[in-house]
């Protein structure tokens, strides 16, 4: 059958592009800005990160330098904003360098969580069936074991250390990322653009890499940011219990533990690291929740 000659060929009508419309990211940004708690959380997290990066320029001495031994245990003053600790180290310096440890562990653990969580979540969501069953059972095992108990055991067995804590935190952090990615890929693999690629002969690896993972950026970002405070809390808990980052490297958990010995008189040694930890974890959580609500309005807090 051929086209009738008097019918103008449809292809001749070149449609001119309409005015450019706002992209989904623009709307996500607007939703994020409307969430005041998330904006404050993000700003606080940004300031803490900047302080951690520029620590040598804003502190009077090195984090382990016992430069103020004669002033040991001094209360907060104009020279020592947060006082001096029992070993003569400027406490503000210790807190700022503690942020370095906390943030580095938080971000590294979140990064490893994502690196483990994406392929497992993608495999579970895409292949389903037996693969999904096995991965989901593994996740269930991780969700019934209390992370702190397991971390204490692993920390005591391995003697702690910086990278050990990152590994332990990632071991428990990937579960959330995996579930988020799995849900997204399950929803997207039935879409017709995936069918169309399969009808072209695309392999599962191609479909996952080129279509499904790029469409999962939102849950991946959300999983990443939400894994950070979990790792920071885990590090602080382990360091508090003495199986985390070993002294003299400043860590907030370790400092809280030490401060407890002086709590009833030299209150500042316990209060400042606790406040620093609380503020950082809270800011990161608020920022993460805000990102989640902005990037995926359909996914509300559980």
């Amino acid at each position, binding site marked *: 059958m051929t*086209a009738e000659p008097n019918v103008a060929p449809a292809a001749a009508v070149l*449609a*001119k592009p309409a005015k450019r419309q706002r992209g989904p990211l623009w709307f996500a940004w607007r939703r994020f800005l409307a969430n005041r708690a998330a904006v404050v959380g993000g700003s606080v997290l940004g300031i803490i990160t900047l302080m951690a990066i520029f620590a040598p320029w804003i502190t009077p001495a090195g984090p382990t330098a016992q430069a103020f031994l004669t002033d040991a245990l001094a209360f907060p003053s104009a020279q020592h904003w947060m006082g001096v600790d029992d070993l003569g180290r400027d406490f503000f310096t210790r807190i700022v360098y503690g942020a370095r440890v906390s943030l580095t562990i938080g971000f590294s653990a979140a990064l490893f969580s994502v690196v483990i969580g994406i392929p497992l979540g993608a495999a579970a969501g895409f292949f389903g069936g037996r693969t999904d069953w096995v991965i989901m059972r593994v996740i269930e095992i991780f969700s019934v074991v209390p992370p702190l108990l397991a971390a204490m055991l692993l920390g005591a067995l391995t003697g702690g250390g910086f990278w050990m804590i990152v590994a332990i935190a990632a071991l428990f952090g990937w579960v959330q990322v995996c579930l988020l990615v799995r849900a997204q890929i399950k929803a997207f693999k039935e879409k017709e653009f995936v069918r169309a690629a399969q009808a072209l002969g695309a392999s599962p690896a*191609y479909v996952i890499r080129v279509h499904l993972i790029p469409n999962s950026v939102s849950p991946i970002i959300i999983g990443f940011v939400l894994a950070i405070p979990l790792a920071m809390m885990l590090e602080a808990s382990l360091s508090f219990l003495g199986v985390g980052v070993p002294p003299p490297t400043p860590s907030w958990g370790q400092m809280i533990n030490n401060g407890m010995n002086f709590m009833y008189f030299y209150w500042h040694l316990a209060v400042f690291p606790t406040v620093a930890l609380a503020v950082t974890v809270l800011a990161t959580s608020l920022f993460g929740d805000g990102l989640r609500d902005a990037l995926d309005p359909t996914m509300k807090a559980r």
Partner: protein
Amino acid sequence: MSGPDRIPPGAVPALELRGLGKRFHLRSGGILRRRVTELRAVADVDLVLPRGGILGLVGESGSGKSTTGLMALRLLEPSEGQILIEGTDVTALGHAALKPWRRRVQVVFQDSYSALDPMFTLAQVVAEPLRIHGIGDGASRHRAALDWLERVGLHRSYGSRYAHELSGGQRQRVAIARALILEPAVLIADEPTSALDVSVKAQIINLLQDLQAEMDLSILFISHDLSVVRSLCDRVAVMFSGRIVEEAPTEAIFTSARHPYTRALLDAIPVLDPRQRRRRTFRDRAEIARDVPVLRRGEVTGPVPEGAGPRLMPIGPDHRVAAVLEGEAA
């Protein structure tokens, strides 16, 4: 090499389905997941799509027409029967062996929104088939994609846009460009116009007609919209409950349909003129299923197929209907 490029064009149909069927096993919940019952979504589908022909496959939702299309694309594994692309049986080919044949049969879906990856620019969408088949480099693929956007009636500057910036009709044009950029022999169009406005629908139909003529394309047009099918297709097959119940040249379907289900479909076409508006009677599926046409021996124009029960019998030039002979039990 036995690739599709080596097959000379000729009398071989572009696409042929032989006795195609699909059974789904419904399982119980719980751990054991016992097989409870079997659902025959599609059974005994024989279809021949000649080169350059447009075959309409019509039927209501759930009649198995989309399942048939997915099986012809090998996106869904058939439970029985064969799929022949340009004379070659591809039913059992594995992923790698099938890939060159995948180029020959392409698809346009109903939902143009979910048919385009939201993270891709339109040039990337249209160039994707070239990318998957490793044809050309990035720059030449991009050029080919923009050429095709123009060919389906979209300005080249659309290449840098994303799917959400387009209307439904424009998205469907992009989907058509993607399906045709590899110059396939067969296009399976699964209700490509049913989500569109009437005026846009006509444009898409015109576009398909033009491209079909230019490319000598064979189209399997799956639809429930008989007025579209009438203007586009040269043959029509009617599906009901997973089986083909009537197949004939388009005009024969509209003038001398024999099967009660075909008549019910024709009856459902809206009539614009109020004076011509008939009183419609809607019959339910069970009633239609019981009402198997009975043919006198003289009405059958060719050899009567073996077997019992309703089966496709020739009743005119190129016209088959699922029926029983006089005196047989339905």
